[in-house]
């Protein structure tokens, strides 16, 4: 439909501009169009393209682009003010046309729904989810959400894990209603839209706002979050138990977990981190005798990945940390890695709210964090009994959680140094606290 060379040229310009493009810090050396498929052959045309992007370090990522084509002169109001969504003009089989990101086009997005889920009736309206990093999601009639994957991986972990959890009876995930595949590739997943839901992050900030304004004991604050945190801990434990039975467990290898921690620490360089003591925290964890099994985990677990709804907490997005390779993300690990991720998120929320409510003593943030950490852990341990998917005794659990938390904080420090230098104080404070308790 589109001449190959002009498509390659357009994509080379277009891809690095997209929010979901993963390698913004690298230059693209080559774009290889692997596959094109015409889904609708008349205007407005819909074409699906799989392209491999080769980067300067010779690594390659596969991307999935949906291209819409309309005739010149067709006023596409949906593109107004969205220059980055335009691919440019092409001489196509149907004559001259301009191409653009088809998901911005409500007409095409609605047709795509029918293509993927012909049995679910024809939706009337569609809107795009703003502020997404790695995928593009469309909401249909406030009833369905279609997550279109932008980086292709086979199989897609989100589909794999969400499907496994749902079918084993863990229903704190949105049910996978349909998926869209082409050959080996998972292209998109359709789920019910959790109407009325709020991200855990926003709910935590609501509680913090109240706590900072009252400036007292967080347990006394009207907006106390502990009950929510405890239920979140319970749901997290149920999720891990379900992951263990759905996708299996293997013997936990605490030495390899700790080795990875040391490796990450080696790559880190910051004058305020006491490396000696950090190594000690890791080594103490390595001495734990029963570390609990390794299982498939969420991998990128924090308050932004959970959603409070009228039916309790839901867990979203099982793709793992985008910076890691697919193999790393699918590797079984300790569920305590997720636990540590959520615990870190409590501190991030408390500190983020503090940056908004200035002039509040840091003790207020700490008291909120410590209350909700404890509530989360209480809820978690009550469901995931020690000895089942957890270390057999609480002191071992404590050592491991501490090590995973420190590991996570060191990862965060690296991330903040590279991307948000103003935020380095948050992981630094956590590192300092963990080391002083060791």
């Amino acid at each position: 439909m589109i001449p190959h060379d002009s498509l390659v040229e357009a994509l080379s310009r277009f891809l690095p501009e997209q929010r979901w493009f993963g390698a913004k810090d690298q230059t693209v050396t080559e774009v290889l169009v692997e596959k094109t498929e015409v889904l609708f052959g008349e205007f407005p045309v819909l074409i699906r393209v799989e392209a491999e992007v080769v980067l300067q370090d010779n690594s390659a990522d596969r991307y999935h682009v949906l291209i819409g084509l309309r005739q010149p002169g067709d006023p596409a109001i949906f593109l107004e003010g969205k220059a980055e969504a335009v691919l440019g003009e092409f001489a196509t089989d149907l004559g001259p046309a301009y191409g653009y990101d088809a998901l911005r086009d409500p007409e095409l997005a609605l047709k795509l729904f029918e293509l993927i889920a012909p049995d679910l009736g024809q939706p009337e309206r569609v809107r795009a989810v703003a502020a997404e990093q790695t995928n593009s999601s469309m909401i249909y009639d406030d009833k369905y959400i279609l997550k279109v994957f932008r980086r292709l991986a086979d199989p897609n972990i989100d589909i794999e894990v969400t499907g496994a959890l749902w079918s084993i009876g863990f229903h704190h995930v949105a049910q996978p209603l349909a998926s869209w595949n082409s050959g080996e590739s998972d292209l998109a997943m359709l789920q019910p839209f959790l109407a009325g839901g709020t991200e855990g992050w926003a709910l935590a900030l609501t509680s913090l706002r109240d706590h900072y304004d009252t400036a007292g004991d967080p347990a006394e604050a009207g907006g106390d979050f502990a009950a929510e945190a405890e239920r979140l801990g319970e749901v997290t434990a149920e999720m891990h138990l379900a992951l263990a039975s759905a996708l299996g467990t293997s013997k936990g290898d605490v030495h390899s977990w700790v080795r990875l921690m040391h490796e990450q620490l080696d790559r880190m360089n910051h004058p305020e981190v006491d490396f000696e003591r950090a190594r000690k925290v890791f080594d103490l964890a390595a001495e734990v005798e029963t570390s609990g099994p390794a299982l498939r985990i969420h991998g990128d677990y924090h308050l932004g990945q959970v959603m409070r709804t009228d039916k309790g907490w839901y867990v979203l997005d099982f793709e793992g940390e985008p910076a890691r390779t697919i193999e790393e993300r699918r590797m079984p690990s300790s569920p305590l890695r997720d636990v540590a991720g959520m615990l870190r998120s409590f501190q991030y929320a408390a500190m983020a709210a503090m940056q908004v409510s200035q002039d509040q003593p840091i003790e207020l943030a700490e008291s909120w964090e410590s209350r909700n950490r404890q509530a989360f852990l209480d809820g978690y341990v009550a469901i995931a009994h020690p000895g089942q998917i957890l270390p057999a005794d609480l002191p071992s659990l404590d050592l491991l959680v501490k090590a995973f938390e420190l590991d996570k904080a060191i990862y965060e420090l690296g991330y903040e140094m590279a991307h948000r230098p103003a935020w380095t104080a948050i992981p630094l404070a956590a590192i300092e606290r963990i080391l002083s308790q060791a």
Partner: protein
Amino acid sequence: MTQPFGEDPRWFQRAVFYEVAVRGFYDRNNDGTGDLKGLVEKLDYLEWLGVDCLWLLPFYQSPLRDGGYDISDFFSVQPEHGNLADAVELLDEAHKRGIRIIADMVVNHTSDAHPWFQESRSSREGPKADWYVWSDEDQRWSDARIIFVDTEKSNWTWDQTRGQYYWHRFFSHQPDLNYENPEVQEAMLGVVRFWLDIGLDGYRLDAVPYLYERDGTICENLPETHEYLKRIRKEVDALYPGRVLLAEANQWPSDVVDYFGDGDECHMCFNFPLMPRMFMALRREQRYPITEILAQTPEIPEGTQWGIFLRNHDELTLEMVTDEERDYMYAEYAKDPLMKVNIGIRRRLAPLLENNRRTIELFHAMLFSLPGSPILYYGDEIGMGDNIFLGDRDGVRTPMQWTPDRNAGFSGTDFARLFLPPSMDPVYGYQAVNVESSLRDPSSLLHWVQRMIAIRKQHPVFGVGTFEVLSAENPSVLAYMRQFEDDIVLCVNNLSRFPQPVELSLAKFQGKTPIELTGKIPFPPIGELPYLLTLGEHGFYWFQLVDSQ
């Protein structure tokens, strides 16, 4: 007897109710206790306020050991409240003003002073021997919970005269009637007919879940109980169409809906769990306590309606919240242990909300717009307070505050003769809070409530419309859409004490213009993008969505 109203038998779906204690409203004969004639005198006020239906607390003959819920004669009026002729006059005068009246009826039990019980206890052989529930042992039905845990140790009490235990789900001076006995069933139907014949517009049926007892059950919500209620309904439909039965069943929503039957049992039921959750949502500054319970609330049959309220004559009841929520509510709203009674909190609306005008308004805005018919509690419309130092639940039953004069303008008697002292609190007392001053002050809460009722009555959608909670990222904002034919109303509430923004996905209504209902102000039309609103602290909006010009 015909009722002087239009033909709409479903009037209760759109009505605004007002709960009033005759005892505490207005004392016409200056004996220190409110009376039916006093209520007649205040009907003009209630008409002005916009009330469609009064709900009277029990005014029947009673030893008054439980605020009149211990009835000793179903067919006569408590003498200090007046007599039967006064009741007839009240009904006539109210009907002239387009106001209906329903009254409490206690079907579950009587006072132990009732002649039926006196006869029943006096002999195991007499004609009324089986009118109450007697037993030689006190262990039967031990799974039935004790409701008044503060005063009662058991649901059985020993009667020395008869030498047996009798069953009572409430106070020990309130023996339960034995509905196994067909004579009791008939007798109570006779009671129901009696007041409807006089012109009463219906009943608020007190304590309905407990009529029957069965082994191996908790003796609540039994099928036999529903059968009997259906029998009452059949009688009402046949002889008194347009009258209403409102069930008091303090149960979880999934159990309460059974009291609607298939539209062939009670016309209305109270929605008990909603109210404490409104308070909780306010304290947490997030909507989930409310939306959660609404999500668990099943659809109700065609032609029925919820009764919703902010406060009533009983404590703020916490039976239908989880233990964790109960602890939380106690901690937040009952900082003084005196404020707790049984499983609840005995406070009036204004003190519960720390006399914050904005939250009081927000609560009324939700009361008037959530699904159900709103029931106001006398005195809350002017912001009356409570007196927690009075015993039991009397603290929320003090005299209505009419004027800043002697005895709050409630009675011309000596202060010492009053059935309860009016509130003399510096903030909530009658010198600060009363109807007369509120009427003079155009910005008073009373005028505001009156205006909101008037707006509500212009929009039947609030009574009969569909209800849909809208998605909002901001958890402090509760937004919902009410829709009835082409009357579409959008309600947005800010549960936070800070201003809040919210983006609502209203694409379905693209092209319509939201008209703010209190001032008829057109807001920018709804476009393709999410609709952005900003709300002040504890602010709310009611918008009617109309086609853009």
